Protein backbone atom coordinates (compact mmCIF):
# COMPACT_ATOMS: atom_id res chain seq x y z
CA UNK A 1 0.00 0.00 0.00
CA UNK A 2 1.21 3.53 -0.64
CA UNK A 3 1.86 5.87 2.25
CA UNK A 4 0.09 8.93 0.91
CA UNK A 5 -3.39 9.43 -0.43
CA UNK A 6 -3.58 9.63 -4.22
CA UNK A 7 -4.24 13.19 -5.37
CA UNK A 8 -6.23 13.77 -8.53
CA UNK A 9 -5.26 16.91 -10.36
CA UNK A 10 -7.14 19.42 -12.54
CA UNK A 11 -9.74 18.88 -15.21
CA UNK A 12 -10.79 15.53 -16.63
CA UNK A 13 -8.58 14.31 -19.44
CA UNK A 14 -8.98 11.39 -21.79
CA UNK A 15 -7.88 8.20 -20.15
CA UNK A 16 -5.60 5.45 -21.42
CA UNK A 17 -8.21 3.06 -20.05
CA UNK A 18 -10.82 4.36 -22.52
CA UNK A 19 -8.54 3.44 -25.42
CA UNK A 20 -8.21 -0.11 -24.11
CA UNK A 21 -11.95 -0.38 -23.45
CA UNK A 22 -12.53 0.48 -27.10
CA UNK A 23 -10.42 -2.49 -28.15
CA UNK A 24 -12.06 -5.15 -26.01
CA UNK A 25 -15.40 -7.00 -26.17
CA UNK A 26 -17.69 -5.55 -23.48
CA UNK A 27 -14.94 -3.01 -22.83
CA UNK A 28 -13.05 -5.74 -21.00
CA UNK A 29 -15.37 -5.00 -18.04
CA UNK A 30 -12.77 -2.46 -17.00
CA UNK A 31 -15.36 -0.22 -15.33
CA UNK A 32 -16.81 -2.97 -13.18
CA UNK A 33 -14.26 -3.38 -10.40
CA UNK A 34 -15.78 -4.07 -6.97
CA UNK A 35 -12.35 -3.49 -5.35
CA UNK A 36 -12.58 -6.88 -3.63
CA UNK A 37 -8.87 -7.58 -4.12
CA UNK A 38 -9.20 -11.24 -5.16
CA UNK A 39 -6.93 -10.43 -8.12
CA UNK A 40 -4.17 -8.98 -6.00
CA UNK A 41 -4.29 -11.50 -3.19
CA UNK A 42 -3.54 -14.34 -5.62
CA UNK A 43 -1.12 -12.56 -7.93
CA UNK A 44 2.58 -13.45 -7.63
CA UNK A 45 3.45 -9.99 -9.00
CA UNK A 46 1.67 -8.21 -6.15
CA UNK A 47 4.12 -5.96 -4.34
CA UNK A 48 6.66 -5.73 -7.14
CA UNK A 49 7.29 -2.06 -8.02
CA UNK A 50 4.80 -1.14 -5.27
CA UNK A 51 2.03 -2.30 -7.62
CA UNK A 52 -0.68 -4.92 -7.81
CA UNK A 53 -3.51 -5.66 -10.28
CA UNK A 54 -6.22 -3.85 -8.35
CA UNK A 55 -4.06 -0.78 -7.90
CA UNK A 56 -3.16 -0.80 -11.60
CA UNK A 57 -6.82 -0.85 -12.54
CA UNK A 58 -7.66 1.85 -10.01
CA UNK A 59 -4.92 4.09 -11.35
CA UNK A 60 -6.22 3.53 -14.88
CA UNK A 61 -9.73 4.46 -13.73
CA UNK A 62 -8.37 7.64 -12.18
CA UNK A 63 -6.63 8.56 -15.42
CA UNK A 64 -3.13 8.32 -13.94
CA UNK A 65 -1.78 7.51 -17.39
CA UNK A 66 1.68 9.04 -16.98
CA UNK A 67 2.35 7.07 -13.81
CA UNK A 68 1.15 3.85 -15.44
CA UNK A 69 3.23 4.36 -18.55
CA UNK A 70 6.31 5.03 -16.45
CA UNK A 71 5.93 1.85 -14.40
CA UNK A 72 7.95 -1.27 -15.20
CA UNK A 73 5.27 -3.42 -13.62
CA UNK A 74 3.60 -4.34 -16.95
CA UNK A 75 6.85 -6.19 -17.75
CA UNK A 76 6.66 -8.05 -14.43
CA UNK A 77 3.09 -9.22 -14.94
CA UNK A 78 3.19 -12.36 -17.09
CA UNK A 79 -0.41 -11.87 -18.25
CA UNK A 80 -1.16 -15.32 -16.83
CA UNK A 81 -4.88 -14.36 -16.48
CA UNK A 82 -5.31 -15.77 -12.98
CA UNK A 83 -6.72 -12.36 -11.97
CA UNK A 84 -9.52 -12.77 -14.52
CA UNK A 85 -10.13 -16.33 -13.41
CA UNK A 86 -10.76 -15.30 -9.80
CA UNK A 87 -12.48 -11.98 -10.56
CA UNK A 88 -16.25 -11.94 -9.89
CA UNK A 89 -16.63 -9.38 -12.68
CA UNK A 90 -14.16 -11.03 -15.11
CA UNK A 91 -12.20 -7.82 -15.61
CA UNK A 92 -9.53 -8.10 -18.27
CA UNK A 93 -6.56 -6.61 -16.44
CA UNK A 94 -4.01 -8.54 -18.56
CA UNK A 95 -5.19 -6.69 -21.67
CA UNK A 96 -4.67 -3.44 -19.84
CA UNK A 97 -1.12 -4.65 -19.16
CA UNK A 98 -0.58 -5.73 -22.77
CA UNK A 99 -1.66 -2.33 -24.05
CA UNK A 100 0.54 -0.56 -21.52
CA UNK A 101 3.42 -2.54 -22.97
CA UNK A 102 2.35 -1.54 -26.46
CA UNK A 103 2.12 2.13 -25.47
CA UNK A 104 5.78 2.36 -24.62
CA UNK A 105 8.07 3.40 -27.51
CA UNK A 106 9.58 0.22 -28.93
CA UNK A 107 13.15 1.28 -28.20
CA UNK A 108 12.26 1.70 -24.52
CA UNK A 109 10.88 -1.81 -24.08
CA UNK A 110 13.13 -4.48 -22.50
CA UNK A 111 16.07 -5.07 -24.83
CA UNK A 112 16.02 -8.85 -24.42
CA UNK A 113 12.40 -9.12 -25.52
CA UNK A 114 12.79 -6.66 -28.40
CA UNK A 115 15.97 -8.42 -29.53
CA UNK A 116 14.30 -11.84 -29.51
CA UNK A 117 11.41 -10.44 -31.53
CA UNK A 118 13.77 -8.85 -34.07
CA UNK A 119 15.76 -12.06 -34.38
CA UNK A 120 12.61 -14.07 -35.09
CA UNK A 121 11.77 -11.71 -37.95
CA UNK A 122 15.02 -12.45 -39.77
CA UNK A 123 14.10 -15.97 -40.92
CA UNK A 124 10.96 -17.84 -41.93
CA UNK A 125 11.86 -20.29 -39.17
CA UNK A 126 10.59 -17.65 -36.67
CA UNK A 127 13.42 -18.69 -34.35
CA UNK A 128 14.09 -16.10 -31.64
CA UNK A 129 17.59 -17.55 -31.38
CA UNK A 130 18.22 -17.01 -35.07
CA UNK A 131 18.40 -20.66 -36.09
CA UNK A 132 18.08 -20.96 -39.87
CA UNK A 133 16.37 -23.66 -41.93
CA UNK A 134 19.79 -25.19 -42.62
CA UNK A 135 20.78 -25.18 -38.92
CA UNK A 136 17.48 -26.81 -37.98
CA UNK A 137 17.56 -29.52 -40.64
CA UNK A 138 21.19 -30.34 -39.85
CA UNK A 139 20.69 -30.64 -36.06
CA UNK A 140 17.56 -32.76 -36.36
CA UNK A 141 19.10 -35.17 -38.86
CA UNK A 142 22.44 -35.33 -37.02
CA UNK A 143 20.83 -36.15 -33.66
CA UNK A 144 18.37 -38.62 -35.23
CA UNK A 145 21.19 -40.44 -37.04
CA UNK A 146 23.16 -40.80 -33.83
CA UNK A 147 20.13 -42.37 -32.12
CA UNK A 148 19.70 -44.82 -35.04
CA UNK A 149 23.39 -45.80 -34.80
CA UNK A 150 23.64 -46.15 -31.03
CA UNK A 151 20.26 -47.03 -29.52
CA UNK A 152 18.96 -50.58 -30.03
CA UNK A 153 15.28 -50.63 -30.97
CA UNK A 154 15.47 -47.24 -32.67
CA UNK A 155 17.45 -48.22 -35.79
CA UNK A 156 14.51 -47.01 -37.86
CA UNK A 157 13.66 -43.86 -35.88
CA UNK A 158 11.74 -41.48 -38.14
CA UNK A 159 11.99 -37.72 -37.74
CA UNK A 160 10.05 -36.44 -40.74
CA UNK A 161 10.74 -32.99 -42.17
CA UNK A 162 8.27 -31.25 -44.50
CA UNK A 163 6.19 -34.42 -44.94
CA UNK A 164 3.11 -33.27 -46.84
CA UNK A 165 -0.31 -34.25 -45.64
CA UNK A 166 0.81 -35.33 -42.16
CA UNK A 167 -1.80 -35.38 -39.42
CA UNK A 168 0.35 -33.37 -37.00
CA UNK A 169 2.67 -30.43 -37.60
CA UNK A 170 4.92 -30.27 -34.54
CA UNK A 171 6.84 -27.19 -33.58
CA UNK A 172 9.70 -26.88 -31.14
CA UNK A 173 11.18 -24.20 -28.89
CA UNK A 174 14.48 -22.98 -30.37
CA UNK A 175 16.32 -23.68 -27.16
CA UNK A 176 16.25 -27.40 -27.85
CA UNK A 177 17.90 -27.58 -31.27
CA UNK A 178 20.25 -24.72 -30.38
CA UNK A 179 21.37 -25.54 -26.84
CA UNK A 180 20.17 -29.00 -25.76
CA UNK A 181 19.27 -31.07 -28.82
CA UNK A 182 19.21 -34.38 -26.93
CA UNK A 183 16.04 -33.17 -25.17
CA UNK A 184 14.18 -33.65 -28.46
CA UNK A 185 14.88 -37.38 -28.58
CA UNK A 186 12.33 -38.57 -25.98
CA UNK A 187 9.59 -36.74 -27.87
CA UNK A 188 10.56 -38.43 -31.14
CA UNK A 189 10.59 -41.83 -29.45
CA UNK A 190 7.10 -41.33 -28.05
CA UNK A 191 5.73 -40.24 -31.45
CA UNK A 192 7.41 -43.19 -33.21
CA UNK A 193 6.23 -45.71 -30.63
CA UNK A 194 2.68 -44.35 -30.82
CA UNK A 195 2.78 -44.57 -34.62
CA UNK A 196 1.82 -40.90 -34.96
CA UNK A 197 1.64 -39.40 -38.44
CA UNK A 198 3.65 -36.23 -37.81
CA UNK A 199 6.18 -33.89 -39.29
CA UNK A 200 8.43 -30.97 -38.49
CA UNK A 201 8.51 -28.09 -40.96
CA UNK A 202 11.66 -26.39 -42.17
CA UNK A 203 9.75 -23.10 -41.97
CA UNK A 204 7.73 -21.75 -39.06
CA UNK A 205 8.90 -24.46 -36.65
CA UNK A 206 10.01 -22.28 -33.73
CA UNK A 207 7.41 -22.36 -30.96
CA UNK A 208 8.25 -19.07 -29.28
CA UNK A 209 6.79 -15.66 -30.21
CA UNK A 210 8.60 -12.84 -28.45
CA UNK A 211 6.92 -10.26 -30.68
CA UNK A 212 3.75 -11.09 -28.74
CA UNK A 213 5.48 -10.47 -25.41
CA UNK A 214 7.01 -7.32 -26.91
CA UNK A 215 3.43 -6.14 -27.61
CA UNK A 216 4.53 -5.46 -31.19
CA UNK A 217 1.12 -6.01 -32.74
CA UNK A 218 2.15 -5.88 -36.37
CA UNK A 219 5.00 -8.32 -35.95
CA UNK A 220 3.44 -10.84 -33.63
CA UNK A 221 0.69 -11.20 -36.20
CA UNK A 222 3.33 -11.57 -38.91
CA UNK A 223 5.04 -14.35 -36.93
CA UNK A 224 1.75 -16.19 -36.40
CA UNK A 225 0.84 -15.88 -40.09
CA UNK A 226 4.25 -17.23 -41.14
CA UNK A 227 3.73 -20.23 -38.88
CA UNK A 228 0.17 -20.85 -40.04
CA UNK A 229 1.30 -20.69 -43.67
CA UNK A 230 3.98 -23.32 -42.97
CA UNK A 231 1.34 -25.67 -41.57
CA UNK A 232 -1.11 -25.02 -44.40
CA UNK A 233 1.52 -25.36 -47.14
CA UNK A 234 2.17 -28.90 -45.93
CA UNK A 235 -1.56 -29.63 -45.68
CA UNK A 236 -1.31 -30.76 -42.06
CA UNK A 237 -4.49 -31.11 -40.03
CA UNK A 238 -3.32 -30.38 -36.49
CA UNK A 239 -0.75 -27.82 -35.34
CA UNK A 240 0.93 -29.08 -32.17
CA UNK A 241 2.72 -26.56 -30.02
CA UNK A 242 5.15 -28.10 -27.54
CA UNK A 243 5.16 -25.08 -25.26
Amino acid at each position, binding site marked *: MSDEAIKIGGKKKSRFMDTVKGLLPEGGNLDMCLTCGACSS*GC*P*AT*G*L*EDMDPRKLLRMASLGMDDELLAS*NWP*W*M*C*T*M*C*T*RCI*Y*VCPMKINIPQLVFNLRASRPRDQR*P*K*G*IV*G*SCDMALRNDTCSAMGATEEDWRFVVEDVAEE*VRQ*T*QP*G*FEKLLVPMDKKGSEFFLNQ*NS*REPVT*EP*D*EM*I*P*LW*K*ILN*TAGADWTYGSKGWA*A*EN*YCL*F*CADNENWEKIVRTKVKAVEDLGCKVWLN*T*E
Partner: protein
Amino acid sequence: MNSDWNKDLKVKFTVQDPCQLVRKSFGDPVALDLRYVVKKVVGEENFVDMAPNMSNNYCCGGGGGFLQSGLPDARRQYGKVKFDQIMSTGADYAITPCHNCHAQIHDLKEHFDGNYHTVHLWTLICLSMGMLGENERVYLGPELQGVGL
Protein backbone atom coordinates in the same frame (compact mmCIF):
# COMPACT_ATOMS: atom_id res chain seq x y z
CA MET B 1 3.71 -47.49 -19.95
CA ASN B 2 3.52 -48.18 -16.22
CA SER B 3 4.93 -47.10 -12.88
CA ASP B 4 6.55 -50.40 -11.82
CA TRP B 5 9.97 -48.76 -11.90
CA ASN B 6 8.88 -46.50 -9.03
CA LYS B 7 7.20 -49.14 -6.83
CA ASP B 8 10.18 -49.51 -4.52
CA LEU B 9 11.97 -46.26 -5.24
CA LYS B 10 8.90 -44.21 -4.22
CA VAL B 11 10.26 -41.01 -5.78
CA LYS B 12 7.67 -38.24 -5.36
CA PHE B 13 6.49 -35.99 -8.18
CA THR B 14 4.40 -32.87 -8.50
CA VAL B 15 3.29 -31.21 -11.72
CA GLN B 16 3.15 -27.60 -12.88
CA ASP B 17 -0.04 -26.68 -14.74
CA PRO B 18 1.19 -24.39 -17.52
CA CYS B 19 -0.99 -21.25 -17.66
CA GLN B 20 -0.99 -21.28 -21.45
CA LEU B 21 -2.10 -24.89 -21.73
CA VAL B 22 -4.56 -25.00 -18.83
CA ARG B 23 -6.10 -21.70 -17.70
CA LYS B 24 -5.66 -19.88 -21.03
CA SER B 25 -6.50 -22.70 -23.47
CA PHE B 26 -8.19 -25.96 -22.49
CA GLY B 27 -9.07 -25.52 -18.82
CA ASP B 28 -9.46 -28.19 -16.16
CA PRO B 29 -10.14 -31.09 -18.58
CA VAL B 30 -6.57 -30.93 -19.92
CA ALA B 31 -5.24 -30.56 -16.35
CA LEU B 32 -7.05 -33.82 -15.52
CA ASP B 33 -5.60 -35.47 -18.63
CA LEU B 34 -2.17 -34.32 -17.50
CA ARG B 35 -2.68 -35.89 -14.07
CA TYR B 36 -3.94 -39.12 -15.66
CA VAL B 37 -0.69 -39.45 -17.62
CA VAL B 38 1.54 -38.39 -14.73
CA LYS B 39 -0.08 -40.88 -12.34
CA LYS B 40 0.27 -43.70 -14.89
CA VAL B 41 3.95 -42.85 -15.26
CA VAL B 42 5.04 -42.31 -11.64
CA GLY B 43 2.34 -44.19 -9.70
CA GLU B 44 -0.72 -42.60 -8.12
CA GLU B 45 0.75 -42.92 -4.61
CA ASN B 46 3.86 -41.03 -5.71
CA PHE B 47 2.04 -37.99 -7.05
CA VAL B 48 1.57 -34.93 -4.82
CA ASP B 49 -0.51 -32.04 -6.15
CA MET B 50 0.27 -28.40 -5.48
CA ALA B 51 -2.27 -26.13 -3.86
CA PRO B 52 -3.88 -24.29 -5.53
CA ASN B 53 -3.78 -26.17 -8.81
CA MET B 54 -5.27 -26.70 -12.31
CA SER B 55 -7.00 -23.54 -13.62
CA ASN B 56 -6.37 -21.86 -10.28
CA ASN B 57 -2.64 -22.53 -10.35
CA TYR B 58 -0.06 -19.78 -9.91
CA CYS B 59 2.08 -18.75 -12.86
CA CYS B 60 5.73 -19.70 -12.29
CA GLY B 61 6.97 -16.34 -13.58
CA GLY B 62 8.58 -17.69 -16.74
CA GLY B 63 5.79 -16.49 -19.02
CA GLY B 64 5.04 -13.25 -20.81
CA GLY B 65 8.68 -12.78 -21.82
CA PHE B 66 9.84 -12.42 -18.19
CA LEU B 67 12.79 -14.76 -18.81
CA GLN B 68 14.11 -12.42 -21.50
CA SER B 69 13.15 -9.10 -19.91
CA GLY B 70 16.42 -8.41 -18.11
CA LEU B 71 14.62 -8.21 -14.74
CA PRO B 72 15.97 -11.30 -12.95
CA ASP B 73 15.46 -10.00 -9.39
CA ALA B 74 11.78 -9.25 -9.98
CA ARG B 75 11.35 -12.52 -11.87
CA ARG B 76 12.74 -14.54 -8.98
CA GLN B 77 10.75 -12.61 -6.39
CA TYR B 78 7.65 -13.38 -8.45
CA GLY B 79 8.73 -17.02 -8.69
CA LYS B 80 9.24 -17.34 -4.94
CA VAL B 81 5.50 -18.06 -4.67
CA LYS B 82 5.93 -21.01 -7.02
CA PHE B 83 9.13 -22.15 -5.33
CA ASP B 84 7.43 -22.26 -1.91
CA GLN B 85 4.44 -24.04 -3.44
CA ILE B 86 6.66 -26.78 -4.89
CA MET B 87 8.77 -27.12 -1.75
CA SER B 88 5.70 -27.53 0.44
CA THR B 89 4.62 -30.59 -1.59
CA GLY B 90 7.83 -32.32 -0.50
CA ALA B 91 8.19 -33.67 -4.04
CA ASP B 92 11.58 -34.76 -5.35
CA TYR B 93 10.68 -33.70 -8.87
CA ALA B 94 8.61 -30.94 -10.49
CA ILE B 95 7.28 -32.01 -13.86
CA THR B 96 7.02 -29.06 -16.23
CA PRO B 97 5.15 -29.71 -19.47
CA CYS B 98 5.93 -26.17 -20.75
CA HIS B 99 9.29 -24.96 -21.91
CA ASN B 100 9.21 -21.59 -20.13
CA CYS B 101 8.02 -23.22 -16.90
CA HIS B 102 10.92 -25.64 -17.14
CA ALA B 103 13.49 -22.88 -17.50
CA GLN B 104 12.00 -20.75 -14.72
CA ILE B 105 11.35 -23.54 -12.18
CA HIS B 106 14.82 -24.95 -12.76
CA ASP B 107 16.31 -21.48 -12.19
CA LEU B 108 14.22 -20.98 -9.02
CA LYS B 109 15.57 -24.22 -7.58
CA GLU B 110 19.15 -23.12 -8.25
CA HIS B 111 18.61 -19.59 -6.95
CA PHE B 112 16.73 -20.44 -3.75
CA ASP B 113 18.76 -23.60 -3.15
CA GLY B 114 15.81 -25.97 -3.37
CA ASN B 115 16.03 -29.75 -3.30
CA TYR B 116 13.83 -30.72 -6.24
CA HIS B 117 14.68 -31.61 -9.82
CA THR B 118 12.88 -30.13 -12.84
CA VAL B 119 11.94 -32.46 -15.70
CA HIS B 120 9.96 -32.48 -18.92
CA LEU B 121 7.04 -34.88 -19.08
CA TRP B 122 8.48 -36.56 -22.18
CA THR B 123 11.56 -37.62 -20.17
CA LEU B 124 9.42 -39.50 -17.67
CA ILE B 125 7.17 -41.10 -20.27
CA CYS B 126 10.25 -42.56 -21.96
CA LEU B 127 11.73 -43.58 -18.59
CA SER B 128 8.58 -45.48 -17.68
CA MET B 129 8.62 -47.22 -21.06
CA GLY B 130 12.25 -48.27 -20.67
CA MET B 131 13.38 -46.26 -23.67
CA LEU B 132 15.19 -43.28 -22.18
CA GLY B 133 18.75 -43.06 -23.49
CA GLU B 134 21.82 -42.28 -21.43
CA ASN B 135 22.25 -38.78 -22.87
CA GLU B 136 18.61 -37.91 -22.27
CA ARG B 137 18.92 -37.78 -18.46
CA VAL B 138 20.46 -34.36 -17.90
CA TYR B 139 17.63 -33.22 -15.63
CA LEU B 140 17.31 -36.46 -13.66
CA GLY B 141 18.86 -36.88 -10.22
CA PRO B 142 21.34 -39.66 -9.36
CA GLU B 143 18.61 -42.06 -8.16
CA LEU B 144 17.08 -42.20 -11.64
CA GLN B 145 20.23 -42.17 -13.78
CA GLY B 146 20.31 -45.95 -14.10
CA VAL B 147 16.58 -46.76 -14.16
CA GLY B 148 15.61 -48.72 -17.28
CA LEU B 149 18.98 -48.35 -18.99
